[in-house]
């Protein structure tokens, strides 16, 4: 664990916490972007260039914009006087802690079971492309189909209803 990792981890966790705790919804969305950027930098710190840049392109370039648009098109950015916290926040905390502990346990176990890599495997973008269109082509096509159907669904929802409009 290098000092860079700790800096990035603090950055990411702070972004995530701010996204949950800030009062203004747009501030939350911007803080979420900081967390996304921190994650992307963590990927880059692990020499995963493709995933890191794809994270920036998709999460900061598209998902964050989508979140912000959704906030602006639905309701005001001010929080209601009752606050944003649910009454059952404690249950949520317990569930989150449970999920985190299971994931952490699984990650730690897998690190012990895997054979130690002598050197950092060099995965080029070319290798990722070959793997995506070779071994993993079926999952890729299923995801593509899912996204296409989502797009068609969005178009149908947004379509102008000619009959009822008058």
């Amino acid at each position, binding site marked *: 664990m290098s000092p860079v990792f700790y800096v990035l981890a603090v950055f990411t966790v702070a972004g995530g916490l701010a996204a949950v705790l800030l009062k203004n919804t747009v501030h939350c969305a911007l803080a979420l972007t900081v967390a996304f950027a921190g994650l992307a930098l963590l990927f880059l710190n692990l020499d995963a260039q493709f995933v890191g*840049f794809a994270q*920036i*392109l998709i999460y*900061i*370039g598209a998902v*964050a914009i989508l979140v912000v*648009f959704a906030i602006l098109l639905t309701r005001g950015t001010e929080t209601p006087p009752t606050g944003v916290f649910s009454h059952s926040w404690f249950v949520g905390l317990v569930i989150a802690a449970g999920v985190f502990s299971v994931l952490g346990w699984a990650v730690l176990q897998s690190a012990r079971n895997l054979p130690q890599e002598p050197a950092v495997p060099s995965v080029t*973008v*070319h290798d990722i492309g070959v793997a995506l269109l070779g071994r993993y082509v079926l999952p890729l096509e299923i995801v593509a189909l899912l996204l296409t159907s989502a797009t068609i669904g969005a178009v149908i929802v947004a379509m102008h209803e000619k009959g009822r409009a008058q």
Partner: protein
Amino acid sequence: MLATPASTLSVPFIVDQVFVLFKDWLVSFLPTSWRPAAGIVLGVIGIVCVYPGLFALTTVFERKGLGRMQNRYGPNRVGPYGFFQPVADGIKSLTKEDIIPFDADAVVHFLAPLTLVVTVFMGFAVLPMGRNMVLVNLDAGLLFFFSMSAATELSVFMAGWSSRNKYSLLGAMRAVAQMISYEVPLLLTTVAVVMIAGSLSLPKIVEAQSGYTGWFPHWYIFTPWGLASFLIFAIAATAETNRSPFDLPEGESEIVAGYHTEYSGFKFALFFLGEYVAMFSISGIGVTLFLGGWSAPLPFLNVVPSWLWFFSKVMLSIFVFIWMRGTLPRLRQDQLMNFAWKFVLPFTLLNLGVTALWRFMGEGWARWVVSSIILAGVYVLMGRVGMFKKHFGPRSYRYAE
């Protein structure tokens, strides 16, 4: 650093590599362990100095050029022929009061121009500006470039939202919607180049275009799919940089100045700088992908240094930007969106198919004929079908006749 035999150290070589050699000479004064980091710092200093300098030059050229197109003089008071106008503009923007609206979100309002300028400058890190002149040669350089340009959208939104001004917010919404819509064709045209070049690394893409058949350069714009990609890329790049005819986000007649309405002084200058530098960087990537990057158009012109070719091509495309601004009227919002989603996007997808065909048909003249016929045929067909219901005819004027 350069692994070149001594016999190639001719005068053209030294002129071509003058910046690289100068950097190596400067770095050689430092201890060995510092050299890579110092080299990168010097490269960054170069980028941060050259592009704002070009920006200053471009503003005066743009105003003079537009003046000529509109039958007036343009700036002609400061210095000879008004060429010191950018200096005066810079001093003015530095000394003006920096106003933050009372209701504005001060932190986000402050961060927006900074994020814009930083993300815009990041893109230059992977652009090859000459032979051996790339700051970092990333394996996924193209992806890095576009991920940085995607991050600028958020800064535009931040500026528009934090100003607490309806015109700013409307401008930001327009800008973001437009940038998102045109980013899809922009990325898909570059996919065509990646399919042929077989790499996401920009120096490798330039290398793939560096050969000649006789006098004919192997630039991708001189292939049917490359020409179609380049035209779509140019349209999408114009929309992405919010330049005329796609400058709805700044529609002066209806929303004052769009997302930077509430910015003054140096922050406004930063937005201005960011927009122009984004033009340089998108022109640079277009030159790299389709116009052979730093390679010369004819084999014997390789005597001219490679960086001069790169910057000449970039400035030529900036001239085309200015020319279009002086020529075309602004689009309407519905025209903009219809054009993006109903014409540009389907055509780009078809072009991807044609590129795949080109890739697998092998060498020979057959692929030139087939892909040209498909692209031209579909272009004409889509144009005819699109115009069919519009009932275009001679324009009739209600009052002016």
